């Protein structure tokens, strides 16, 4: 991607506002096209379990994955398809998980957004919101003990997840342990169906930063340039010895909580808010208006992405699911210590 992006950028009259702007946009576009495909498969009854998408949050999520380097830790959450992809997770991992291939990273044992990607340093979340924060902190502590250098850890959370005790303990211990940590919170104004007023009562969530000894940054989550600057900047600060960083992005979840949810509880007025705009078409419009990409290239990107997506889906669809009778039913690695309750 990087190459493409820079080439396009430099052949244009004006240079995009961030050197990785176009690259980032391509991840946003890929995610949008890919998640629309997943939704179609879900509607077609071909998905096992639920589908959870990051519609409207592609700019923030892409920025979360884009600045990570080898050796960094990423703890993606429910809305982070874009960040996962930008961070190096192959699309086929996703389709294998959603379509129940035994060759997927979770082998049919766990599903959808719970998947991790060890090769890309991406952790496999558990459902319990906030639990991942201290795990990322622990990985950073270990890397420091092992003498590694230049690493950071980044994880994401929603405004609802910020109200869990685990988030509090995790945010605080990161500051006490002085690890290079970035927490990117997306206030998408709903936790499932629950609006902000039943979730928290502080003026702005970024005020939580000071409460833990973090540096805090508020950002418009629908503005790609702002997301790249603020999240990229926070990653740099953490990498260069700064205190833990809290970024709070404001935006609207532009889908249901999951694809089973029609989100009819979202008030129409709210959709008119500036922070409610859809970052993908907004960014595309800006790009074309400024001539940072021409229509042809954009069409070519769409075609390439659709092909990638179809390939990932077809691959997974060709693969068999797990088989109960052949499964290795051991929850522990140490075989000799397997407990046999008997029947």
């Amino acid at each position, binding site marked *: 991607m990087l190459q493409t992006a820079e080439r396009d950028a430099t052949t244009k009259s004006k240079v995009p506002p961030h050197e990785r702007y176009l690259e980032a946009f391509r991840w946003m576009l890929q995610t949008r096209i890919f998640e629309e495909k997943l939704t179609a498969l879900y509607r077609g009854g071909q998905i096992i*379990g639920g589908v959870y998408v990051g519609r409207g949050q592609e700019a923030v999520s892409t920025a979360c994955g884009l600045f990570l380097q080898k050796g960094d830790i990423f703890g993606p959450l429910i809305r982070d398809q874009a960040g996962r992809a930008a961070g190096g997770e192959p699309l086929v991992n996703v389709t294998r998980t959603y379509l129940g291939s035994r060759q997927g990273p979770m082998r049919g*044992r766990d599903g959808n957004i719970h998947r991790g990607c060890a090769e890309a340093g991406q952790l496999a979340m558990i459902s*319990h919101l906030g639990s991942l924060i201290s795990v990322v902190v622990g990985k950073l502590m270990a890397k420091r003990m092992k003498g590694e250098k230049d690493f950071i850890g980044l994880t994401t959370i929603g405004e609802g997840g910020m109200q869990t005790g685990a988030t509090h303990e995790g945010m605080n211990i990161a500051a006490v342990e002085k690890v290079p940590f970035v927490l990117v919170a997306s206030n998408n104004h709903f936790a*499932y*169906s629950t609006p902000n007023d*039943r979730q928290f009562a502080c003026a702005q969530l970024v005020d939580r930063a000071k409460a833990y000894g973090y540096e805090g940054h508020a950002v418009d989550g629908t503005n790609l340039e702002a997301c790249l600057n603020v999240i990229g900047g926070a990653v740099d600060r953490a990498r260069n010895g700064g205190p833990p960083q809290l970024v709070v992005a404001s935006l609207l979840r532009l889908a249901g909580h999951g694809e089973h949810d029609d989100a009819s509880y979202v008030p129409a007025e709210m959709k008119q808010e500036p922070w409610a705009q859809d970052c993908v078409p907004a960014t595309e419009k800006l790009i074309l208006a400024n001539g940072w990409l021409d229509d042809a290239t954009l069409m070519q990107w769409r075609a390439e992405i659709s092909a990638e997506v179809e390939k990932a889906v077809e691959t997974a669809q060709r693969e068999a699911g*797990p088989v109960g009778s052949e499964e290795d039913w051991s929850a522990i690695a140490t075989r000799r210590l397997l407990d046999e309750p008997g*029947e």
Partner: protein
Amino acid sequence: MSVTYLEAIREAQAHLLREDDRVYLYGQDIAGKFGGAFKATKGLAEKFPGRVLNTPISEDAMVGTAIGAAMEGMRPIVEMQFADFSSIALNQILNNAGTQFWRTNQPCPITVRLPSGGTKGSGPFHSQSMEAIYSHYPGLVVMTPATVEDAYTMLIDAVAIDDPVIYCEHKYLYYHLKADALPKEALPIGKARIVRPGRDLTIVSNSAMVHEALAVANQMSGEGVEIEVVDLRTVKPLDTDTVLASVARTGRLLCVGETFPWGGVTAEVIARVTTEGFHLLDAAPARLNAKDTPIPYHPNLWETHRPNAKSITAKVRQILAE
């Protein structure tokens, strides 16, 4: 007109809100038009303004506030979005609610609803049956209704009880189970039910597993094997007398549960029957549980992970062959 298990739970809450102004509902996404992840409170917020409240994602505090309100004379019903998330509230439930009466002599009448048990594609954190953990600690009453009728009457009973009640409702039964109407009467809390009389073997089970057991019983009666099926209804208190009486009739015992094996409901039932009714048994008791791994996401794995008609039938044949 017919009523599902889920509708019975909603109707019970509507009844309670109507009849008892000490009652309020507290949980994530239960208010507004939305009415809960499973719609168990659909329509109630509009009907009972100010008494069906959404909460932050804070299970510890949700139960903590319920404890305080209960000690002030209210009768809160807390909905966990999934039983699995009650792990976050577990300290408040076991160490605060469960010890309150013993320590202070003040009752702590909270009801915690746990949408429990496995369904296809739900995976390790949306499928758990936690009745064993809550029964192990002192101070709680633990219910696992297996029928539409029990879902309705036991929830009403739960709120009437002056002690903390863990009400485990099985998600698999939400839509699968239908009754013609809401019940007019019910067995008292603490009594198990003989769902199907039998002669040759007793299957003791609870919650969704009662229906797997029944299916096997009905199918095997074609072969002349008469299985007596006992539905425990509450796992704490556990109605040892009814179980012993059944084993006295059949001489053979199979316990079927969806919890994990170690220290699960089946272990407790077998411990009681063998310590108190050893001589009633003509053969070794047996148990079937979920496997000792997290609950799998993929249906192929999930169906093997939990006991089912196939594995129960095989086990019954094995016991009868002894």
